[in-house]
């Protein structure tokens, strides 16, 4: 299309060099291109028809088909131990609508990584990485969402048999929403309030077998299924899960930080927020994921705005590209800037998370609270603004944006799921507010020197007026 070619000729920079900035280095950007080129040659990994024309069951079947091909051929396309390459491969092949193992990679394996002891990792993590078992992370409940303190699922320790008895006493206690819980997973890391000798030790994580490994049928004492269609993300079988006095061995409590001895002795974790690590992990990576979805929509809208001609700015001139209108630029360009800002802020946060994880493994959890507060705020602001940006992109495409041919409504639906999963945005903002109020109290009491680096500005002296346009 000559209009798009003309746009590409006016650029002042090399897009490969810019890609290196976006993806954290020239090597990473080049690998993405190589993976894309390799995939172009493997038709079994392409959509067999446009996804919007498929039913939910057809999409799940299509996705499972591609997953099996990927499992066989993955190592010839990517380095499977490289999370960045795996993420790109998934986006290209499986897309954003999810897949039967979506949570296996982003929640189950990281939870085992962070919370299982070395012996437990040897037992389960290896099998998970080999895809011999499929797992998910089940915390959220129907009646309480992700509010940890009010979860109703209990895990009561039976000293006589050295087992934990998992139970969901009411409908509201059902695990509700966890991705891939409904039909695909046969294991889950389950969060439940742990009781020993009548005392509640609070929420803890347990490795729980859900389905028979041979038949994939639910195990006795387990009620499990899909929660039905959602606004988007419908390839994921978000599920419900109930326990009827379901017994698991004591050693299925994830014991990297917490331990329960055979006699019921409880050894507490070094830090109360240690069990948040799986959520902090997802929130850290969510930012770059949101940046990518925002960029999807902006790519579509901006390219289309360079192709679409409508109306005249000067009556004596021919119809112009709609991208020439200042209103269209004002609609799209600030969100292009935000997409880059989210990507860069996300990359910084992921680095911080990796540092915290490393320090946690050696017992230092001091940065966890800071990171938890920061990622809570970032997750809320970024998902909200990403939703706004995708909606602007859709409207920038006029009527065609409303067609599934644009795919923008699916991108929107998937992206704004992030406003509620991993903690509802308002709750997350208040989480950060708690940290800010504590910091404000330090300032008020003259202890500004104790402020963390992220809030040091709260105690700093500022100029009486802004110097914007005065310097």
């Amino acid at each position, binding site marked *: 299309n000559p209009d798009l070619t003309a746009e590409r000729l006016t650029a002042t920079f090399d*897009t490969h060099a810019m890609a290196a900035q976006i993806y954290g280095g020239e090597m990473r950007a080049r690998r993405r291109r190589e993976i894309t080129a390799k995939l172009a040659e493997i038709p079994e990994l392409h959509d067999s028809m446009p996804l919007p*024309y498929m039913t939910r069951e057809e999409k799940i079947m299509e996705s499972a088909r591609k997953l099996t091909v990927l499992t066989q051929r993955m190592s010839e396309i990517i380095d499977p131990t490289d999370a960045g390459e795996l993420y790109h491969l998934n986006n290209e092949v499986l897309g954003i609508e999810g897949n039967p193992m979506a949570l296996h990679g982003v929640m189950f394996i990281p939870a085992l990584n962070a919370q299982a002891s070395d012996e437990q990792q040897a037992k389960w993590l290896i099998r998970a990485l080999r895809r011999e078992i499929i797992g998910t992370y089940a915390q959220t409940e129907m009646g309480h969402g992700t509010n940890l303190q009010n979860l109703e699922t209990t895990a009561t320790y039976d000293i006589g048999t050295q087992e934990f008895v998992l139970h969901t006493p009411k409908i509201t206690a059902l695990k509700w929403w966890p991705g891939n819980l409904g039909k695909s997973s046969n294991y889950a890391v389950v969060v439940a309030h742990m009781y020993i000798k009548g005392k509640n030790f609070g929420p803890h994580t347990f490795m729980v077998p859900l389905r028979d490994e041979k038949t994939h049928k639910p195990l006795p004492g387990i009620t499990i299924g899909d929660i039905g269609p959602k606004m988007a993300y419908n390839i994921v079988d978000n599920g419900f899960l109930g326990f009827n006095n379901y017994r698991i061995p004591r050693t299925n409590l994830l014991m990297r930080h917490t331990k329960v001895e055979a006699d019921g002795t409880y050894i507490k974790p070094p830090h109360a927020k240690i069990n948040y690590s799986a959520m902090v992990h997802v929130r850290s990576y969510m930012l770059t994921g949101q940046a990518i979805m925002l960029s*999807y929509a902006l*790519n579509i809208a901006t390219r289309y705005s360079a192709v679409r001609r409508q109306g005249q700015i000067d009556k004596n001139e021919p119809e112009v590209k709609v991208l020439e209108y200042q209103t269209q630029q004002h609609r799209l360009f600030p969100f292009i800037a935000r997409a*880059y*800002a989210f990507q860069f802020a996300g990359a910084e946060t992921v680095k911080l998370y990796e540092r915290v994880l490393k320090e946690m493994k050696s017992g230092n959890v001091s940065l966890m609270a800071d990171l938890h507060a920061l990622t809570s*705020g970032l997750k809320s602001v970024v998902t909200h603004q990403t939703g706004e940006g995708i909606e602007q992109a859709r409207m920038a495409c006029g009527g065609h944006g409303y067609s599934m041919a644009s795919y923008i409504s699916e991108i929107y639906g998937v992206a704004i799921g992030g406003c509620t999963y991993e903690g509802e945005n308002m709750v997350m903002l208040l989480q950060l507010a708690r940290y800010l109020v504590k910091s404000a109290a330090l300032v008020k009491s003259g202890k500004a020197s104790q402020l963390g680096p992220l809030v040091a500005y709260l105690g700093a002296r500022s100029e009486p007026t802004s110097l*914007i346009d005065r310097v």
Partner: protein
Amino acid sequence: PNGGITEYIKTFQHIAKRQTLKAANKFFGLMENGEKREIAWNKSSVELNRASRLHTRLFIVEAFARRVNEIGDITIKEALSDLLHLHVNYELLDVATYALEDGFMSSTQLDYVRDQLYFYLQKIRPNAVSLLDSWEFSDRELRSVLGRRDGHVYENLFKWAKESPLNKTDVLPSVDTYLKPMMEK
């Protein structure tokens, strides 16, 4: 290329700080006046959330600026500096009330911010498509007829429509079963 960004960051810091201290004071004040902690928290929560948003937006601006400062390649740095300038002006306009209400910024300065925003919209215009091409999404990944890299939108929209399952037959069963009998009555 980042001249002036520091003053923007200081302005974001000022408004985030002011809102945090204001919201915290409201919360502490309610408690000093006898409200229970939980009630005081609930009554301050909208203001507290505003503080959280401003703090987060400040972090995003700072992270963006930090990254741009690290870049060595001149052409990339300039293109991203333009985006950064657009970002700080757009963000500041969005939260300008906080900077205006205590006189930290004047309406004249706000007009300058607006002018800067329009300046950078125009400056970015020639790079717009390439700034997005740089994300290097294949058509397979984008799954969008409208966003095709080759820009051949209209012919492919028509092709896409023809693939609709409704177009497999000329007459739908719903017409034969319900609409036709209704029209024949």
